[in-house]
């Protein structure tokens, strides 16, 4: 093992700029002649727009444009990754707190801010806004979406966007000795990337250039091209490395508005959202999930019957896919004779919910694992034993028609149980809990890469992945280093420019190391094949007798470096070798999700907690997370992702939730009132370990790793709270207030 190749933990590629302040995030990009944009929003959720008077705002010195929906093509273009429902600016009615109704572009930020105050939006706050599940399902409530946007949709006259039904076997025919059923709630939470979202756009010849803090630059390119009626080549998207994304930056939001403003003014325009505006742009769906599990006396699970309602926002974004993809896997990693799953995506007058690390699975895992714990308790069976009894074995087709279990998941559970010392007595005053989480990787995907081996042996990698902190640049460089023997400091990874880098479908579902990694591996193998041809020509040896690997060219009688062969082969003109690689997993139209899981992320989390009887505070003494990663290509980065996801999971488990007032306004808007874990909110001991059996589909046997450890944080902590206190709380977060109140009721 080299210090830079597979299994090594070299310094992060791109790390130097991040510690010196020279890394250029979107807001750091300087642009000559730029206009500063500010949004005009209303301090209410649902309002009818009567008129917008821009006269006074336009008279502010330096203001160049006040754009309203009336200035856009009519009907106002709508867009979205799943449904074309989100308008460029609000049309007729605002549907959530903070939905933009107009925007100002001015020479300075000060002028833009002043003008925003002077735009007069005559509006009427509409009563009856839909902010809760019950409200959405009340037939007397207004429809969030205009039924005209939902032609031929039998549900168009309801606030239910879609119903998804999955399952196998016959739940009603299964016999159980014990049935446990309850409803579990999961709160709305927000991504809270430390880098707020930002956007820029500028006329670019007869096309347009757009800069965005976006995870999917090629999706943005496609959407802008469609809205503006331009060929793809006339839309150039720049996607600088983001300061965190976690799913919230997957899909376009304000880029179409920025494109129209740039074209209208003929100038570059720039909009950096405030943190508050970022809160109003993205969130995770809240959920109410009813789980009914049938158990045999010995703990064998006979069936699961799950109804999951997700409260999505006013526009769909990717939320319906979150609902369907996660619900499909609602029963987790268990062997079940029968399963019935009904999931509903329900519209509301709230922030559009979108992808957020775990993609719906944390909500379902909370409900399922908590329900299983209740079953174990009622049966008097150790919850660890009960899980192992029902766990799918490696290779077992636990979901009919889908990818069989792709890991030795029992090994992961045993490792976590060992680290939490499950078999030893729990110290007085404490409790232990354990849970498992399972998430599918991508169901389809397409990544291309080009690798250029330059004449001096240095390498250039082109990858359309977004490095948002997960460390994709490092992983990709390590693959090239492993294949071509090039040191990391002689490899550059080019990303974030659709005019320079070949297509990549998206950066999501922990796919990049597996999908783009495979494309890069294949591009390197393409170069190795060319080197073999070169060596054959140079030395008069048949290609079949030459092996190229890990930086060396092996001839039957001797070994050469790749650089020797490359330079001799390129000759006096120099030049380079160009390798191309593709990784494709096609859509399967017969599969309910459009494809089987490329891999699974499996995690077992175990905790030991103490609950303060006076304050209700949960103190996590020990927190163990073990993930089945296939192979840790870069162990340091795996631990970073794993611990980071665990701490994020502790956020929604113990402290985070968006609070709405009666008119749908977010009451805890901003960093003071919405708390995320700080350095002092960590478990007293936090252990992250991996199981590595090299059984993943990615290069060298890797799987995706970036989401697993927050999938089951909540049930693992809640089980420990129950163990310590005897309390069963079925609503998150487990704030001191909620736990304290429950303890008061218990007395």
């Amino acid at each position, binding site marked *: 093992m080299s210090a830079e190749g597979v299994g090594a933990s070299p310094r992060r590629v791109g790390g130097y700029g991040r*510690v010196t302040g*020279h890394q250029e995030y979107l807001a750091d990009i*300087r642009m000559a002649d730029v206009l500063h944009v500010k949004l005009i929003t209303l301090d209410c959720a649902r309002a009818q727009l009567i008129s917008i008077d821009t006269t006074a705002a336009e008279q502010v010195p330096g203001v160049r444009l006040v754009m309203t929906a009336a200035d856009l093509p009519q009907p106002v273009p709508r867009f979205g990754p799943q449904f074309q429902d989100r308008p460029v600016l609000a049309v007729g009615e605002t549907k959530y707190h903070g939905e933009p109704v107009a925007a100002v572009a001015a020479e300075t930020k000060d002028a833009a801010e002043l003008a925003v105050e002077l735009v007069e939006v005559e509006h009427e706050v509409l009563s009856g806004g839909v902010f809760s599940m019950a409200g959405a399902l009340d037939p007397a409530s207004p429809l969030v979406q205009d039924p005209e946007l939902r032609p031929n949709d039998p549900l168009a006259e309801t606030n239910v966007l879609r119903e998804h039904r999955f399952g196998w076997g016959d739940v009603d025919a299964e016999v159980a000795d014990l049935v446990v059923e309850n409803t579990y709630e999961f709160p709305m939470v927000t991504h809270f990337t430390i880098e*707020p979202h930002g956007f820029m756009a500028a006329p670019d010849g007869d096309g347009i250039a757009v800069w965005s803090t976006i995870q999917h630059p090629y999706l943005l390119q496609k959407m802008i091209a469609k809205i503006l009626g331009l060929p793809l080549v006339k839309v150039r998207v720049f996607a600088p490395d983001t300061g965190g994304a976690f799913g919230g930056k997957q899909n376009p939001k304000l880029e179409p508005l920025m494109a129209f403003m740039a074209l209208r003014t003929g100038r570059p325009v720039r909009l*950096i959202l405030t943190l508050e505006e970022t809160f109003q742009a993205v969130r995770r769906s809240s959920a109410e999930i009813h789980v009914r599990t049938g158990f045999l006396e010995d703990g064998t699970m006979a069936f699961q019957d799950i109804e999951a309602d997700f409260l999505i926002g006013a526009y769909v974004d990717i939320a319906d896919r979150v609902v369907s993809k996660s619900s499909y896997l609602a029963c987790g990693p268990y062997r079940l004779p029968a399963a019935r799953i009904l999931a509903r995506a329900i519209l509301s007058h709230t922030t559009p919910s979108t992808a957020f690390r775990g993609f719906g699975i944390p909500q379902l895992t909370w409900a399922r694992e908590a329900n299983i714990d209740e079953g174990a308790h009622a049966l008097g069976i150790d919850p660890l034993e009960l899980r192992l009894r029902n766990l799918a074995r490696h290779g077992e087709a636990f979901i009919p028609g889908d990818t069989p279990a792709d890991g030795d998941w029992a090994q992961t559970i045993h490792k976590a149980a060992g680290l939490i010392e499950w078999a030893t007595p729990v110290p007085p005053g404490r409790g232990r809990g354990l849970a498992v989480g399972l998430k599918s990787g991508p169901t389809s995907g397409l990544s291309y890469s080009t690798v250029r081996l330059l004449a001096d042996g240095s390498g250039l990698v082109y990858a359309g992945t977004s490095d948002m902190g997960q460390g994709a640049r490092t992983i990709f460089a390590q693959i090239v280093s492993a294949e071509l023997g090039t040191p990391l400091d002689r490899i550059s990874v080019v990303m974030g420019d659709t005019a320079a880098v070949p297509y990549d479908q998206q950066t999501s579902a922990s796919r990049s190391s597996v999908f783009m990694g495979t494309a890069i591996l294949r591009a390197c193998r393409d170069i190795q094949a060319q080197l073999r041809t070169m060596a054959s020509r140079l030395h008069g040896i048949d290609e079949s007798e030459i092996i190229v690997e890990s930086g060396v060219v092996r001839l039957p009688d001797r070994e050469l470096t790749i650089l020797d062969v490359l330079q001799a082969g390129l000759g006096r003109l120099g030049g380079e070798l160009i390798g191309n690689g593709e990784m494709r997993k096609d859509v399967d139209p017969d599969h309910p999700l459009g494809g089987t899981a490329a891999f699974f992320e499996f995690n077992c989390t175990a905790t030991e907690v103490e609950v303060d009887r006076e304050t209700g505070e949960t103190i996590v003494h020990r927190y163990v997370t073990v993930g089945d990663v296939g192979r840790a290509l870069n162990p340091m980065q795996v631990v*970073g992702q794993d*611990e*980071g996801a665990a701490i*994020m999971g502790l956020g929604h488990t113990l402290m985070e939730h968006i609070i709405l007032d009666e008119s749908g306004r977010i009451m805890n808007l901003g*960093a003071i009132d919405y708390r995320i874990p700080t350095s002092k909110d960590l478990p007293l001991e936090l252990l992250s370990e991996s199981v590595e059996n090299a059984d993943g589909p990615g290069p060298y046997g890797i799987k995706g790793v970036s989401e697993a450890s927050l999938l089951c944080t909540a049930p693992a902590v809640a089980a420990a709270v129950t163990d310590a206190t005897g309390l069963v709380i079925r609503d998150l977060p487990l704030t001191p207030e909620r736990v304290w109140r429950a303890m008061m009721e218990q007395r």
Partner: protein
Amino acid sequence: MKFAHASSLTFTVNGTVHSLDVATHHNLLDVLRDVLELTGTKECCVEGECGACTVLVDGRSVNSCLMLAVEADGREITTVEGLASEGRLSPLQEAFLDEGAVQCGFCIPGQLMSAQELLAKNPHPTVDEVRDGLVGNLCRCAGYQQITAAVLAVAEAADR
């Protein structure tokens, strides 16, 4: 209020003296980023909670979003750009890279500045003291353990 008067400001940033006119309502963060183009200092919450904009003012860590630029008159400011000297990274910068403390990187300038002050005041902090010292710097990638390890590694190395 929005078109407040300009005021002259003379201060030292990373060893260089600057004299400029600034709007009295602009905060130090605005002036560092927009006027001096020192964009290593980051903007996030602008209410003193996240720590992304942390700089040193006369050696004390300050949320530059909460300090008016004119208040910096006569003071010495250090930003993340001032930590490395002659292309050589500071011990903290090196340790952050070695320990894997840097993920997306957006909070890192602020973390480094807070850590810099912490070690200047307390060269041998305990784990709890490091966590206390950096509690005002949020990291959503949550590399808190790695950041703490990096600070402790620098403290330990200084002993040798």
